Structures are given as structure tokens and as C-alpha cells.
């Protein structure tokens, strides 16, 4: 398993969020999640301009075995999606915290970020 970068925070449903220097939020799924899913073959991303709500489904990730909802860690407006995933969804398997990000959003309530799990708390939650 890759080490979890210290600047990420998590939902217990395995999504991560990172605050970028311009105040936007990048969203992806954890290394643990990609490992559970196995080979990822398709991703359905939100539309740019779409509003998403914290802890509501914003994307879908499909491995060979099954389809899973991806929940947004924060509320806000989607400003960019990772178009690389359209043709190379397997990047999520190999680089879940880097090139395998899903989308970026303008957060509407940064207070939601503070409520997310720290890397340590998330790791503990995965072991339960």
C-alpha cells in the first residue's frame, strides 16, 4: 500500500480531498479503495459546472467486478474533471493520490473539510 500523503483528508467511504494553493479542492479515491475494487475499467465523472453536495454521489467508478458510487467529500461547484481517466481509468489503480484524481471543485463551505477524517483516523477506520 502507498503511504497516504499527510495533506489529504477522507470520508470513511474512501474518498479523499486536498486543498490546493488557490483554495480549490481536488477529489479522488483512496489507495485502499482502488485495491478493494481491483482493475478499474470505467469512470463516470460529474459535469463541469455541476453542483455537488457533501456525502452525496458525484461520480461512478467501475472495476471489472462491480460499479461503485463515489461520494463528494465537500459541497461546491465542479470546476474541472480529470479527462485522462476517460481513456486510462487504470491510472486510478496505479496513482490514486496523484494522476488518478477525479475532479476539482470550488468549495461552498470549507468547514466541511475540517470535519473529514485525518489520514490516521481513516487508516484506523479501514482496519475495523
Amino acid at each position, binding site marked *: 500500500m502507498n503511504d497516504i500523503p499527510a495533506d489529504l483528508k477522507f470520508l470513511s467511504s474512501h474518498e479523499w480531498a486536498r486543498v490546493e494553493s488557490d483554495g480549490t479542492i481536488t477529489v479522488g479515491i483512496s489507495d485502499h479503495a482502488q485495491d478493494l475494487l*481491483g*482493475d478499474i*475499467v*470505467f469512470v*463516470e465523472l460529474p459535469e463541469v459546472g455541476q453542483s455537488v453536495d457533501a456525502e452525496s454521489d458525484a461520480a*461512478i467508478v*467501475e472495476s*471489472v*467486478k*462491480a*460499479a461503485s458510487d463515489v461520494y463528494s467529500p465537500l459541497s461546491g461547484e465542479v470546476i474541472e474533471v480529470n479527462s485522462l481517466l*476517460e481513456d486510462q481509468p487504470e491510472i486510478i489503480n496505479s496513482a490514486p493520490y496523484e494522476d488518478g484524481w477525479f475532479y476539482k471543485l470550488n468549495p461552498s463551505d470549507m468547514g466541511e473539510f475540517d470535519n473529514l477524517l485525518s489520514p490516521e483516523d481513516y487508516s484506523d477506520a479501514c482496519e475495523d
Partner: protein
Amino acid sequence: MNKTVLNSAHIELGAKMVNFSHWEMPISYTSLIEEHHAVRNTAGVFDVSHMSVFDFNGGDQVAFFEKIFANDIKKISNKNKAIYGALLNEEGGILDDLIIYHAKDKFRVVSNCSTREQNRQWYEKHAAEFGVEVVARSDMGILAIQGPDALNKILSIEGINPQVNNLPSFGCMFDGDKLYARTGYTGEDGLEIIVPSDEINQLWDQALRLGCTPIGLGARDTLRLEAGLNLYGNDMTIENHPYESNLGWTIDMTDENRQFIGKQALLSIDQSKSQKIIGIILRDKGVLRSGYEVIHDKGKGVVLSGSYSPTLQSSIGLARVDQGYKKDGKVMIRNKMLNIDFVSPRFVEKGKISI
């Protein structure tokens, strides 16, 4: 939870284990897609010891199978061969699909794990009138070694009877209590070896040492789907008859005097109106999944098995649809209508795309 004898061997290899019909089984060891390609390109070894094995003693076993099996067992009598077919109830519903192996006057039946108890009761109910004793062989395990290099690998295994090399497709032979058969569930050449459980660890270790890739149930599912092979409980259940399950070819009514269970019900079915199982390929991005609605010019249907095909690198599935379909149709995925083509369900044969 039931465990096969190889359970700890799977865990040592780092397999992800899942509950499959109350059996703890490996779903994959490394990457499902890599495991899939290993079987298509070289050779893979599968632990399928969760499947049910039955032997039979005494009585008129041929007459017994003539009655309970919808395919005609006479096709393989004295031929050292295996035959695939269905066990039907009186209504023509599919109780299970199974392979009957027949060599040296002995019959051995392998069927699904979820139907073990149902089948045991069904055999016992009908065996009595033929004086046949039913023996559930829970002391047996099954290894499948499949792929273009499978036979070469198998012949290098210590203690393997070299005559297995001469087995034709669907041929089988006993070696003591061990059964070798040129059968499988992948669309590739290879063997299934049904052996006493205490011999299986040694066979497994040798297969790995010879370079066979261990294959989990995940790749087993994508391999059988590409080969167009039904999965019981998924593509057909007791609610389905063989004609709507792509199994019409296994119903043998050549012998008019043979009264097998379910025959009368099948005779009353108008096959020109029954639905069919057909292969589908998704032409847009996405993944077909069980339960999605299918639409064509003359009717509709539903996806039974759906997955991603590592060989075709697109999504494929089996669907049960109304007759009258032509080349293409639509599938509904999350409220979007996407394009599909209807094809013969045999997507891949011996490593090559065959549609």
C-alpha cells in the same frame, strides 16, 4: 464458511478471499485482468474444489441418467467422454447444469456448489428405482489447468499419467480414483483434474512451480463470459427452461422412447416464441451489468451477465431477449440509452476474438 483444502495456500499467495455461496474462495491474487490474459496466452491454474462431485454405485446407472438428464447419456457410453447438459424438473425448469464424466464403466458428475444439497436429494429420490447408490464425494478436490500451454505444463507434473496428452476434447480417463478430463470453463484447451483432497496441495504446488498463474474466481467469470458459457443462478435458474437459456442444443429427443424428466413440459413450449440468450457488446463507454434493460426493434430483454472483456477491451454480456432482434439495439444504463450490437455469445475461442 466452507473452505477448500487449498485455502491457506491461497491466503499465503496474498489472494483476496470472498464468500462465494458459503465457500471462502480467492477472487483474485494480483490483477484480475492479468490473470485473465495469463489463461488466454499461457496457462493458469484454478482451485475449483467448491464444485460438487458425485459418484454412483451399482444398479442400472445408464437408465438412471437417461431419466434425470435432458441430454442423452448414450452419446458417451463406452467412449471415455464427458457430456454437458441440464437437470430439469417436471415443469422443464433448470435445476442445474452439469457435466457427466463416463470412463471405465464409471460415472462421475460435477455440478455447481450452490445446488449441492438440492442435487443430492434429487439423485437419491430417483436413484432408488434403478438400484443406484449416490455417493457425495466431499473428499474430492478439483484443479483446472487451462490455456494454450496447459497441456505442456501438465505433462511435466510428476506422477501425471502421460496418456492425458491423447485425450480428445471432452475426453476423460480414470487413474485410480483420480479423473482427468479435457474440459474447462474458459474457452481454452486444458484439463480438469478431480483428485482426492489429500493429493491436491502437491499438484497445486507443482503447477505453480511450472509457471502456471494462479487464477481467481474473478477471472474465471470473465473467461467463461468471453467463451459464452452460462453461469447457473445468473444466466439461468429454476424459473427458466433450456430453450430460453441457449441450452436447446443439449436437449436430446432423438430416442423417442426415452422419457426424461421435463420432456413433456418441453414438448409443449413454442420455441418460435420463447426468448433467447444472445451475446451483446456495448459500443459506447461503460460497463454492462446484470439487470440492465435491453431494447430492440421487435421487443426487449434484460442483461444477465455483464462485465468488462479483457480480450475485446470493451464491455460484453449475455442478455435474454425477445425474438426478432437484428444487428443492434439499446441498453439502458443509469437512465441513458447506449448502443449495443447483438452477436453470437461465443466472443472468444482459443485465445482469438471470434465474433
